[in-house]
């Protein structure tokens, strides 16, 4: 029986801001009393859907954000971290999905950044490069430490991260989706390293979406769902259906009301669209009055597809037809004028001017239509904005309230109001309910349903399966930058099925 070295008990975290502090007065739990432990020299796989809380849990372990409740014990001693460095000194290394390297420095400089070998100011280059080679050779790699990290492949960059983490004498290494951008030979190489590390007594926490990998290297699998601990299964008892069940086992509530009836008149049609030079072409269409769900993992190319249609991104061949016309090389503003709009994934970055009042934000996209003669009539602007605020039930003090003081749900409704004011015929919604509370969610679903009844074609991108299933008339699933499945019958909408197309 292997010894347990790390125990996390009843870890709780409320929804937090960019600095990891809990939002004031918030009751939404991202992590709800989650238990997690790591044994010596094991590969412990952590899985769950997007937003299940895997990353948050690991960020707490990595010292990046503090927990709001619960305890962590390392070797039986209680620990808490004030920052990532402290976690590292306790022997916990974190390899992020977005690698944390300086691409413009060479390998040795990256490995020894902040701990350069040498007296006082000057670096003992000879020694440092020799040590780096040695460390790389130990893992069986022949990479010249003088190479710039930028010139390495992603897999090699990952190896540099691993070497860097190991040089701190780490006993636990967190790997967040390490294979996400690796080729299959690179993945094999990575697995060899992981097994090598295991032999040296190092434990690995491995986050991944790819089932075939888990069976190959995992020892135990822990499933999280909606911020809750669901269970831990030893790899010998691995059962595909059971794991999927654990990941999705959610009940669909009465949140989703579908009164709209889709037509068969195509309003948006995409043929052979390639979002990158190496991806397979995409075919897709949206009818009038239809809600089409676009499911898939974050990073599967959903947003890129939407932006390609919206004209804010260059794509690699294919035709887009909107309202009977082929649209080619158009600026988003022309499409907005014609009634095709895109509600972005990140409302704070791309959806709102946070420092501007609600009224200005709502009318922002419709100014050319409302005031064709350039000067803005503030009175009319307020009337129009007020109508939007009432229609969508945006809760605010006044039309002059700045958008950065609104809650997430109300911010999202402001963005929605802005786009509805442009009187769209096709609305592309990218994660319309991300990070907003349940009430606001159901209100947004009602708005979507109402729009569809009015004949608007809706393409809804979402990571949340219940939402996709509850709202859509038809579902596309995306994987690796292309559409991997189309489900046309409502009876086929089922979490297990969609998830299996998503994961491949």
């Amino acid at each position, binding site marked *: 029986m292997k010894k347990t070295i790390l125990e996390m008990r009843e870890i709780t975290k409320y929804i937090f801001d960019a600095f990891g502090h809990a939002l004031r007065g918030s009751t939404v739990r991202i992590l709800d009393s989650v238990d997690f432990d790591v044994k010596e020299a094991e590969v412990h796989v952590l899985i769950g859907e997007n937003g299940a809380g895997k990353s948050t849990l690991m960020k707490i372990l990595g010292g990046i954000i503090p927990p709001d409740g619960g305890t962590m014990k390392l070797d039986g001693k209680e620990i808490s971290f004030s920052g990532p460095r402290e976690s590292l000194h306790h022997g916990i290394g974190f390899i992020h999905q977005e690698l944390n390297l300086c*691409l413009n420095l060479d390998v040795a400089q990256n490995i020894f*950044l902040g701990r*350069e070998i040498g007296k006082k100011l000057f*670096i003992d280059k000879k020694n440092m490069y020799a040590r780096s080679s040695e460390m790389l050779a130990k893992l069986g790699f022949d990479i010249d430490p003088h190479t710039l990290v930028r010139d390495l492949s992603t897999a090699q960059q990952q190896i540099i991260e691993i070497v860097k983490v190991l040089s701190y004498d780490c006993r636990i290494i967190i790997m967040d989706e390490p294979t996400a951008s690796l080729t299959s030979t690179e993945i094999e190489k990575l697995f060899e390293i992981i097994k090598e590390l295991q032999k040296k007594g190092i434990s690995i926490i491995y986050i991944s979406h790819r089932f075939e990998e888990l069976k190959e290297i995992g020892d135990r699998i822990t499933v999280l769902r909606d911020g809750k601990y669901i269970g831990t299964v030893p790899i010998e008892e691995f059962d595909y259906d059971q794991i999927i069940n654990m990941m999705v086992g959610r009940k669909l509530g009465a949140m989703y009301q579908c009164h709209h009836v889709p037509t068969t008149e195509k309003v948006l049609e995409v043929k052979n669209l390639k979002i990158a030079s190496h991806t397979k072409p995409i075919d897709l269409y949206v009818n009038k009055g239809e809600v089409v769900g676009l499911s898939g993992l974050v990073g599967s190319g959903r947003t890129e597809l939407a932006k390609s249609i919206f004209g804010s991104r260059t794509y690699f061949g294919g035709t887009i037809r909107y309202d009977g016309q082929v649209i080619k090389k158009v600026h988003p503003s022309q499409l907005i004028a014609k009634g095709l709009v895109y509600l972005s994934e990140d409302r704070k970055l791309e959806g709102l001017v946070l420092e501007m009042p609600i009224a200005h934000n709502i009318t922002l996209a419709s100014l050319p239509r409302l005031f064709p003669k350039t000067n803005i009539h503030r009175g009319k602007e307020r009337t129009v904005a007020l109508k939007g605020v009432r229609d969508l039930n945006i809760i605010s003090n006044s039309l002059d309230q700045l958008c950065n003081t609104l809650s997430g749900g109300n911010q999202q409704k402001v963005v929605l109001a802005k786009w509805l004011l442009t009187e769209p015929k096709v609305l592309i919604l990218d994660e319309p309910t991300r990070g907003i509370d349940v009430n606001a969610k159901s209100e947004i679903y009602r708005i979507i349903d109402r729009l569809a009844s009015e004949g608007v074609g809706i393409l809804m991108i979402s990571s949340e399966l219940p939402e996709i299933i509850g709202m859509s008339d038809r579902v596309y699933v995306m994987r690796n*930058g*292309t559409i991997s499945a189309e489900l046309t019958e409502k009876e086929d909408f089922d979490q297990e099925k969609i998830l299996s197309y998503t994961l491949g």
Partner: protein
Amino acid sequence: MKPVKIEKKHVVYTLIVVVFIVASSFIPGFLSIRNIMNIVRQSSIIAICACGMTMVIIIKGIDLSVTGMLSFCAMINGLLLLQGWPIPVAMIIGLAAGTVLGVFNGFMVDTLGIPAFITTLVVGNVGGGLALLLNEGRSIGGFPDAYVFMGNGTILGVPVSNYIMAIFVIGTSVIMAKTRLGVYVYAMGGNETVVKQQGISTSMINYFVYGFSGFCIAMAGILLSGQLDTVHPTQGEPYQLDAIAACVIGGVSMLGGEGKVYFSLIGALIIGVQRNILNLLGIHPFYQNIFVGIIIIVIVAINIFKKNRAIELSKVF
């Protein structure tokens, strides 16, 4: 399909060769030793400013205080000289003034979080104002012979200015290549988050880089006053754009993280050559600024275009 990779240094080398061939075949007197030494001497002011500027741009900053600060430090130094202070003491005070103002820039950027272009522009303007105020807008001149020798004299046939420039360029590249500080400067330009995660103080880097830039500007100002035997309160003006241009032509990326001091030196020499050529051709100096400005814009635009394209192409699904 892999796009053809054009390295920056190749562009720089080609530029030099082309400029030299064109110049020496069309302009009589261009290739004489005297003229070339003269070019290097005039370029030394730009090159010294570019030493500090290179570091500043590598950490994604910009130093717009050259104009004012250059005149201000030279003015302090010049006034002290005229009052009979010993040359080394006056120079040290002048250099210290530049360094202090530079560190102040670093403080504003790092601790107060004010964008570098505002901070440095304001500090430069204040410096320029002080330079005017110190001598009520008048020029000063008539410095001691030994001081003018530093600007115009030669040792073994090479202008003293060139030795000073060499010391600055070599010193800066040693810092950048051999010391921790140099690595941190590059690292900060590459990925600031990583630097912070490694527990390195980014404040220290900011203070050092802007302070060093101030120091270089002060030295350039002092050397210029030696070369001209005059300090005029606005004589720093042309060097702002030239210092940035030298870095950009030398391949320092305005997006940070990339650049070498000796390439910036070559950039400075290219500007020197270009000004010399235009002078020999009898073209009015006003055109020269337009020319330098266009070169900067074109190079930066190409740079950013390439970078954006590389990001888009590297996306994997």
